[in-house]
């Protein structure tokens, strides 16, 4: 299959995901429910108990805000990739897989589509920033969107790797229970990872979400929190986080494409 058809095919798969996202406004609104719950109920309740964060400089809700963005990106990206299983058996993807387009192109289009949608989903969370006293400059917003896109790409590629050879949806609940929730919890989304037990820190280091949340947090807090307070809550520099995320992306994407491309 030639390159032009492949570019066209990847673009079509991407475009369809994006079009579906924007044509379903109720879903967009509904997807704000869980983040609202976390930020205002959970975060509001915990704020008093977590008053010492960053030497008392950082309100818990503000600390948690980047974690909530990471959560939205993580779930949207993995859901979108795992939907391949369903879509390949019963849906639109069957129609794509019989078109004169290589499977690698379909996989790349799917990763691009899932990443874009997950970035938008994370971007919507930014609209809640003023309500918890986070002011963002245009530059910060653009950096955050870039980081979200990168984290989303990592997690979509990861999801595709899980889904590539799977034929039924049965394993999906398992993935949610035993993979996504732990990944969220050990990512530092809800508590700082400086000073946790070694084994937990070790789990956090092999978890790609950790790097995304760390970079997002530094970007969100950079303007309002002193450097020393921020350093006490961070693991790595933003640059190091980005480099690690890029490495994760390639490590997931290459085998995902290879597995997805194998003809039955």
């Amino acid at each position, binding site marked *: 299959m030639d390159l032009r058809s492949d570019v066209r095919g990847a673009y079509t798969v991407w*475009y369809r995901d994006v079009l579906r996202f924007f044509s379903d406004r109720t879903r967009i609104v509904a997807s704000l429910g869980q983040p609202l719950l976390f930020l205002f109920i959970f975060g509001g309740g915990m704020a008093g108990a977590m008053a010492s964060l960053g030497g008392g400089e950082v309100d818990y809700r503000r600390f948690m805000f980047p974690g909530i963005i990471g959560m939205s990106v993580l779930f949207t990206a993995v859901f979108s990739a795992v939907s391949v299983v369903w879509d390949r058996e019963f849906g639109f993807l*069957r129609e*794509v897989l*019989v*078109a004169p387009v290589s499977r690698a192109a379909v996989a790349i289009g799917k990763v691009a589509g899932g990443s874009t949608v997950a970035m938008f989903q994370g971007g919507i969370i930014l609209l809640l920033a003023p309500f918890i006293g986070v002011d963002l400059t245009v530059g910060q917003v653009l950096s955050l969107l870039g980081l979200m896109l990168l984290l989303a790409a990592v997690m979509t590629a990861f999801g595709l790797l899980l889904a590539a050879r799977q034929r039924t949806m049965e394993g999906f609940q398992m993935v949610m229970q035993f993979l996504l929730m732990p990944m969220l919890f050990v990512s530092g989304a809800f508590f700082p990872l400086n000073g946790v037990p070694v084994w937990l820190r070790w789990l956090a280091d092999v978890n790609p979400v950790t790097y995304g949340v760390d970079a997002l947090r530094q970007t969100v807090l950079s303007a309002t929190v002193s450097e020393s307070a921020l350093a006490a809550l961070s693991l790595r520099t933003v640059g190091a986080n980005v480099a690690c995320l890029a490495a994760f992306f390639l490590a997931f994407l290459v085998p995902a494409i290879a597995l997805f491309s194998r003809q039955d």
Partner: protein
Amino acid sequence: MIHAEGLVRRFGASTAVDEVSFEVGEGEVFGFLGPNGAGKTTTINMLCTLLRPDGGSAKVNGFDIRRERAQVRRSIGLIFQDQTLDERLTGMQNLRFHAMLYGVPRDTFRERAGELLSMVGLESKAGENVRQYSGGMRRRLEIVRGLLHHPRVLFLDEPTIGLDPQTRRRIWEHLLELRSAKGLTLFMTTHYMDEAEHCDRIAVIDNGRIIALDTPDKLKAMVGGDIVTLETSDNEAAAGRIRSLHGMEARLTDGGRKLVVEVEDGGRFVPVVLETLRSAAVPLDVTDVALSRPTVEDVFIKLTGRTIRESEADAVERARMHRRAGRRGPGAHG
């Protein structure tokens, strides 16, 4: 247009398609008839390059299904057994995605979509969400979609499954009209007997093998003429009398409640046999007579000794056993 030779496909230990060979000419409507699990979908998937054959070879439109997959794909349209429309999008958006995938230029797309939509009577619904479509409308939209890129061969896997009889008839009218208007070749699978009769030629497939291949008329001629079904006061005695006086084999069916005779010309045979039975030493009462022309179903029964429905029960049972054994069988899509 299609040339298949010795196609084989295995799933684990079971052979879903076993040495299948056939030829389909240009403009022909070719039917694959058999119970679920007989290997129909597996064959279509191999011809459409979705599934790699374990043995044999095939050409579609002159392109090899192993080595020239892109060319095969460009020259065929495929309509799946389960619908593959995106319900969240409109009919037109679904069509546009297809055109994008196949690189149909915008102008050509608009013109061809308009023409095909009006042929199947959907032009006023194209802007609506597919979720609001009925089953028949979805199928028609899928047919339009499958034809957008000017394929020479259209593959249809159970095109009317789950539709009511009236809708099925309409779908067939559309298909046959498209065939004559566009010179299309149609390759379809079905397990509906009445549908098989629309085909120019039928391959009867059972357990992965083609057990008969001919025109519907010639296949039906294999059964040996018309079928007369009788109910009498004593079917066994009646069977003996028909055998001795007419030299014909009369089979008891339905637990002995009915008597079936295959004859050349049923219309002339019925009055004669009634007379034969009434004039017996102990006269036999005939309570019911039915005369039927043979159907393709009768051909299947003749060849396999089972009805298609019975075979499907077997296939379901086999699939269940596969699942229990933890293997991936051909399942419902075989």
